[in-house]
């Protein structure tokens, strides 16, 4: 019978090529029963937004370890909004200094995870906060 499955786009925007963390998350989300579309590294925000729409995901997870999160993360949120797809939840992870957090939340990021975050806590956050669309 009908059962909505949570679909997640996992992507690394910008020039950062360190994707061990993103791969661990992809595996973790797979094991949690989600469908994970992994795009790999070096994505532009435009590519990520287009992919999110083509894949009809509920959640976009962005990983960035290079320090460019302040530009790249909000850009994805804005592009989705411009396409009328602001119902897609965007979260981020990486090395994000404390003082950058509030501006990112203000820009529309729904959650931010930093080194040391437990995999279980991510899955729980998704199960609590992400409802597959109607």
């Amino acid at each position, binding site marked *: 019978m009908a059962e909505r499955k949570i679909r997640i786009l996992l992507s690394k925007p910008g020039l950062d090529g360190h994707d061990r963390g993103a791969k661990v998350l*992809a595996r973790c989300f797979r094991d949690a029963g989600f469908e994970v579309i992994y795009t790999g590294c070096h994505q532009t925000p435009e590519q990520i937004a287009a992919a999110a729409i083509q894949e009809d995901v509920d959640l976009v997870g962005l990983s960035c370890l290079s320090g460019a999160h302040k530009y790249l993360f909000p850009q994805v949120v804005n592009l989705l909004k411009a396409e009328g797809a602001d119902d897609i939840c965007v979260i981020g992870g990486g090395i994000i200094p404390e003082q950058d957090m509030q501006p990112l939340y203000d820009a529309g990021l729904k959650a931010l995870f930093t080194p040391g975050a437990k995999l279980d806590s991510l899955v729980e956050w998704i199960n609590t906060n992400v409802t597959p669309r109607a």
Partner: protein
Amino acid sequence: MKELGQKVLAGDVRSASRLIRNLEDQIPGTHVFMQQIFTKTGNAHVIGITGAPGAGKSTLTDELVFSYRQRKKTVGVLAVDPTSPFTGGALLGDRIRMLRHAEDKGVFLRSLATRGSMGGISKAVGEAIHVMDAMGKDSIIVETVGVGQQEVEIINHAHTVIVVLVPGMGDEIQALKAGLMEIADIFIINKADRDGTASLYKEVANMVHMSVTKGGWEIPVLLVESVQEPKKFAESVSVICDKIEDHYRYLVDNNLLSERLRRKTTSEFNEALWGAILQPVLNDLDAGGEMEKMIDKLLKKETDPYTLAAEVAVRYKNKV
């Protein structure tokens, strides 16, 4: 909500993607939209790409999309990857090889998980093809999961089937076996700069010479190498693209396309009948808890499945 079908016909990506998701999730009422679009379909050329895991299907698909775009054709891609039998989750990684098309409005790429289907594609693929067709895509490429010998479901959906082989997978008897090796309209030997290519080519070419095709299609065996040399690689794939178009013309000229369409339509109608007749019965038996009771009876050997099924058939005869 009513206009979803109209938007798909107008080529709207978000609506099409949502419709495909509804089909995958089997949301009740989705068939209303399929009714809106079905009669408008039948214009796209559907190409299936299949082969073992890691044979290079995604990389070839990416380059084929490029070739088609050079020829000013719009393309839909349905890329299938496996669902976990344990968790129901999936890691869909085919996009990684196809990034450069993400922003091209002439390309719509959608990843699908198999969700329990065993034939190399998912149940929703057939319907998703119709959705992309209705959007007006000229060519639709279906990339199957990495397959073994037996997952040949793609033949029910593709007009042209490409089987991708790589050297080093077994002796010449493998090339003679039934299943995967029978379904190719075009063979590609990928990674042909590796050892074993010459003998694989010989085995496949020998096997192909023994094949009899209606209308005299000679199944090409094409070698592809040098993925590291983009220009050379692009040239090889452009040749594949030519062959795919030759095959389509051959199907049309020999009136064989209708035969393939008939196969697909038959299997679709079977599915639809299943959904309209058997599914409501199963739902009803499940809801009343009767299914479990019948299974118990069978486990205790009080009766047999055939008698029970006949009883159920009589009971629901005029109800569905």
